[in-house]
């Protein structure tokens, strides 16, 4: 019957991917708002104020959430784009792998930055 399965999509099911992309979009939107409010509330912000914000545990958790959301969001999106436009399996897999690796590097690097200073 109809079910078109795939092993490279993130959530294994269509609805999981769809939901993940929606939820991650909300997280990212919210995170952007928080940053904006902070920037506007602190005119002429210094390095110390900025570092102070990221020194707090709650901000680190929220930022990590945003990072993971970017990873998931970009993965679902780029996976969709590659399956739309790249009809040849090997190049498509290579591009998907490159995207996955990049996401992973960004997430790890982000964690290092957050807890590294």
């Amino acid at each position, binding site marked *: 019957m109809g079910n*078109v399965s795939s092993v490279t999509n993130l959530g294994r099911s269509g609805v999981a991917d769809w939901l993940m992309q929606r939820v991650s979009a909300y997280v990212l939107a919210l995170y952007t708002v928080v940053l904006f409010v902070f920037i506007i509330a602190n005119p002429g912000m210094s390095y110390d104020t900025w570092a102070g914000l990221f020194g707090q545990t709650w901000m680190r958790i929220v930022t990590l959430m945003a990072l993971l959301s970017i990873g998931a969001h970009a993965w679902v999106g780029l*996976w969709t784009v590659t399956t739309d436009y790249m009809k040849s399996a090997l190049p498509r897999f290579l591009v998907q792998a490159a995207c996955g690796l990049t996401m992973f590097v960004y997430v790890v690097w982000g964690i290092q930055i957050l807890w590294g200073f």
Partner: protein
Amino acid sequence: MLVSLYRYNPEADNAPFMQDVEVELPKGKDLMVLDVLNLLKEKDVTLSYRRSCREGVCGSDGMNMNGKNGLACITPVSQVIKKDKLVLRPLPGLPVIRDLVVDMSLFYKQYEKVMPYLVNDQPAPAIERLQTPEDREKLDGLYECILCACCSSACPSFWWNPDKFIGPAGLLQAYRFLADSRDTAQAERLAELDDPFSVFRCRGIMNCVSVCPKGLNPTRAIGHIRNLLLQRAT
């Protein structure tokens, strides 16, 4: 009026080409595009296109008229003509067999995938199965589809993945049976649809709605299916 026709006969032509033909339209009468094609065919019998009911219910003569998909038999020339020119092409995204005739097998295959028939595991009663007028009303805007393929062949997602994305026409019928109070296979139907391609390749651009010659709304039906899938998954 100048008619620009997409011509291709695989036996005679190396590649498709556009043929310009001048047509004298009878005065005082607004012809349908199909009437124009019939006039052209009287002069050149090699021109090929499908047609049957000539009143917009059989879905044979879906084609692309000055850039927009529709049924030739219910589209008045005056409605589509631009600068005294009519450009007729086959439905986009499907393989061309000849001239305006496309190969619809992929389209039909996607329709067949959604189990487009009523499933009811209860023994049939001696009379009809009862259904309230309210439940019946839920099928309005769904059962009227004529399978002309105007919508699916106007959908970029269907162009990219015609083998995996069911497309607006098939999904409209999928929901027609999901919404039928007499159907008992909802769980099975939803399980078949929950993959990243069948439903979720719809990006909601609503090309299907803008071209449907019967005024139906596949995008809305797809939204309903997505909600049912969400309810089932969460």
